[in-house]
């Protein structure tokens, strides 16, 4: 009897092991290192049968987010037998292509990939993530910031697939160079160091502007920033404004006073940031005051400029295997400020150590439409898309636009072993990114209905000041006036109710 038991046990173990090995072997053909067991794994998804059913997905154009959508759609088809139709749309069209079917009651797409800051406009049309998916190990590992980004009120309506933030990128080799340090000290009287404030950023960028500090026979420049009006410039301005306008001890709203819904966009903190932004034009490369995101990525990633700040892309481009500046770059938190506007006391408060306000900027997210007739399949697709193996695979391909959003992504060994980064680059990178999760003075996007109206209005005002058409104060007064009108049109209570969700995140409630 005992021997039969042992034989049975041995057989079971052998079959299980054999099966695991066989399946692990099979799934490696999809380009992953190893399948990670769980609800969303290759193994689990391969047991689903969606033959005869069709999943419709709308996503961004290839490659950013569009390419991984295609890749995992094909894998999903092979594993489940489903047919998956993917529609690719340029970013400028994505909002309306999603919103029009929503407003007209059509069920055009089951799965949607879009910018996470549109949650205020889309949330009423989205299906909350079912409880079952919260138990997936990958979901449990999503960091606090990106759970917050995906959540509306107390419901998660967006499925986390990406993590974005703005941070400072700089040429580490230039900052470490003894000759540069000496020259900088002689010229400015200060030690050359990675800027901790926007004033220091200004000084360093000015010093390294217009001469060949890279030794390649070409002039190089101080700073590359996203400045093209309708090409995500609003996010660059928020990065700069956060330092001056987000007071660590003042709660109740960054863009608006939550109680009164009065815009704060023309208060001294924002005005000072815009003055500094206008001043920064002096150390942009030629054409730098009309740089879109692509130009900024190319300028810093291509070695033209010393510093930059925005999404991960420029850093990742600089760290591409064939990059001339691979392992010569560094990451640090966005510069802060030693004085921050206190809107309660109407005074500038001084800080001995700079006050930092990390900007947890919008990034890619995904969701399932409430009107979808394939919600089960749609959530399984998103769960599969973002499973641990796929996420680690996608993180390694810069053009995919997938950036760290799980605790596991902040393992230094992943960046050194898998991507060949020097430890001296990987450690500050991981610390900078993960450090933002620990901050208690974060700024989030204005995730309210009509967010595009608020942001295009702000971008137009900032652009007018940058072009010298108006002074920073005049330009932001104009934006504040327009914001008041937008709030009145959409409805003060409606905007306030939505904005309360943002303020709750910022106030760490």
């Amino acid at each position, binding site marked *: 009897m005992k021997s039969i038991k042992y034989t049975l046990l041995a057989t079971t173990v052998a079959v299980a092991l054999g099966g695991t090995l066989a399946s692990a072997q099979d799934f490696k053909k999809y380009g992953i290192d190893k399948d990670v067991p769980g609800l969303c794994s290759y193994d689990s998804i391969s047991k689903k049968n969606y033959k005869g059913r069709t999943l419709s997905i709308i996503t961004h154009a290839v490659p950013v987010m569009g390419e991984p959508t295609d890749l995992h759609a094909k894998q999903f088809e092979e594993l489940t037998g489903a047919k998956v139709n993917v529609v690719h749309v340029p970013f*400028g*069209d994505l*909002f*309306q292509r999603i*919103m029009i079917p929503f*407003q*007209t009651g059509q069920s055009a797409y089951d799965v949607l990939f879009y910018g996470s800051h549109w949650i205020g*406009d889309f949330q009423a049309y989205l299906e909350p993530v079912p409880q079952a998916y919260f138990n997936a190990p990958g979901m449990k590992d999503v960091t606090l910031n990106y759970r917050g980004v995906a959540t509306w009120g107390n419901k998660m309506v967006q499925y986390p697939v990406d993590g974005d933030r703005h941070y400072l990128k700089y040429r580490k080799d230039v900052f470490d160079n003894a000759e540069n340090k000496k020259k900088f000290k002689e010229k400015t009287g200060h030690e050359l160091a990675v800027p901790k404030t926007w004033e220091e950023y200004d000084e360093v960028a000015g010093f390294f502007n217009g001469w060949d500090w890279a030794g390649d026979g070409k002039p190089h420049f101080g700073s590359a920033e996203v400045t*093209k*009006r*309708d*090409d995500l410039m609003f996010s660059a301005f928020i990065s700069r404004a956060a330092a001056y306008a987000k007071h660590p001890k003042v709660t109740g709203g960054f863009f608006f006073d939550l109680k009164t819904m009065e815009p704060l966009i023309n208060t001294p903190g924002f005005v000072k940031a815009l003055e500094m932004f206008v001043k920064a034009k002096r150390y942009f*490369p*030629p*054409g*730098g*005051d*009309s740089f*879109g995101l692509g*130009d900024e990525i*190319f*300028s810093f990633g291509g070695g*033209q400029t010393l510093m930059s700040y925005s999404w991960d892309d420029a850093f990742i481009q600089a760290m591409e295997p064939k990059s001339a500046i691979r392992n010569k770059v560094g990451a640090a938190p966005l510069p802060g400020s030693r004085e921050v506007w206190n809107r309660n006391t109407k005074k500038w408060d001084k800080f001995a150590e700079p006050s930092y306000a990390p900007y947890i900027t919008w990034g890619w997210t995904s969701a399932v439409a409430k009107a979808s007739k394939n919600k089960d399949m749609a959530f399984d697709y998103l769960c599969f898309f973002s499973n641990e193996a796929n996420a680690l695979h996608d993180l390694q391909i810069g053009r995919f636009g997938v950036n760290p959003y799980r605790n596991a992504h902040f393992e230094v060994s992943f960046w050194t072993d898998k991507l060949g980064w020097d430890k001296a680059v990987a450690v500050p990178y991981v610390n900078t990114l993960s450090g933002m999760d620990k901050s208690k003075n974060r700024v989030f996007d204005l995730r309210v*209905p*009509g967010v*595009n*109206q608020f942001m*295009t209005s702000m971008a*137009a005002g900032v*652009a*007018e000041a*940058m*072009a*010298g*058409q108006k002074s920073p104060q005049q330009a932001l007064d104009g934006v504040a006036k327009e914001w008041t009108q937008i709030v009145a*049109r*959409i*409805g003060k209570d*409606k905007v306030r109710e939505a904005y309360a969700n943002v303020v709750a995140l910022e106030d760490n409630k």
Partner: protein
Amino acid sequence: MSVDRGKLVFVLPGLIVLVAIILFPLLFTIRVSFSGWDVAQPGLDWIGLANYLRLAEDTRFWESFARLAVMAIGSVALEYLLGFGLALLVWRDVRAGRFFRVLFLIPMMTTPVIMAVIWRTVFHESLGPANDLLRLLGIASLPWLSDAALAMTSVIIVEVWQWTPFMFLMLLAGLLSLPREPFLAAAIDGAGPIRTFLRVTFPMIAPISIGAIVIRLIEASKIMDTVYVITSGGPGTATETSSYYIFIRGLRDFQIGYAASLSFTYLVIMAISLTIIAKVLARAMIVKDNAV
């Protein structure tokens, strides 16, 4: 009666198409313009003239009209001059005339958005070939896209490059259709090439010129894709045209009702302006007594 019904059957498909693709969208746009349809309030409610009152105070919209006028008139004038010049060159028997005719048409055959992306690269102030060329010639680099006047010039250059072939094609077709007799008469009377051009060619081609100019003005006044790709309306609002502004309000901000009122106002203003322009051009260009 039966004959009339028979006629109606033949006219009906055309009428249905007309209603479906012109009248219905137009009437629907007018109706939407009286609604507050936007991102937070979907649907056709009734807010009276609110959008039109808001529009009257919208300085950004009216300023965009002024820019549009500069851009459209400037680019179409240049296209006309260049197109006419090229058509006159190819009109006469020249070597490889067919080759040049096809060559001149190539820009028009390309996709505007793709060409705008290429031109944006050309004008890139750090890496673009436009500034490389200037430096080779010993001229300082120009801020093509970050200076207001130059950004406007850059957009006009792209428009002229893309649409001069249209002028060329229209005017060449016109020149080829002109009767030979007036030219023979002018030659017998001893008129030189300039006099022949001024007193024969130009007056005879004037109706076609006016048609081509008005068609191009209609198209040029809708300029959106070139602005969107090359300057995004910047620097500041220096290259923001009416159609680009309507695009931002309608499809980016999703203020559907307000954008409909902007569109309808734009349509009315353009219809009136172009009618006046066509009449002025006819008066200026068509000479009643065109004897040599």
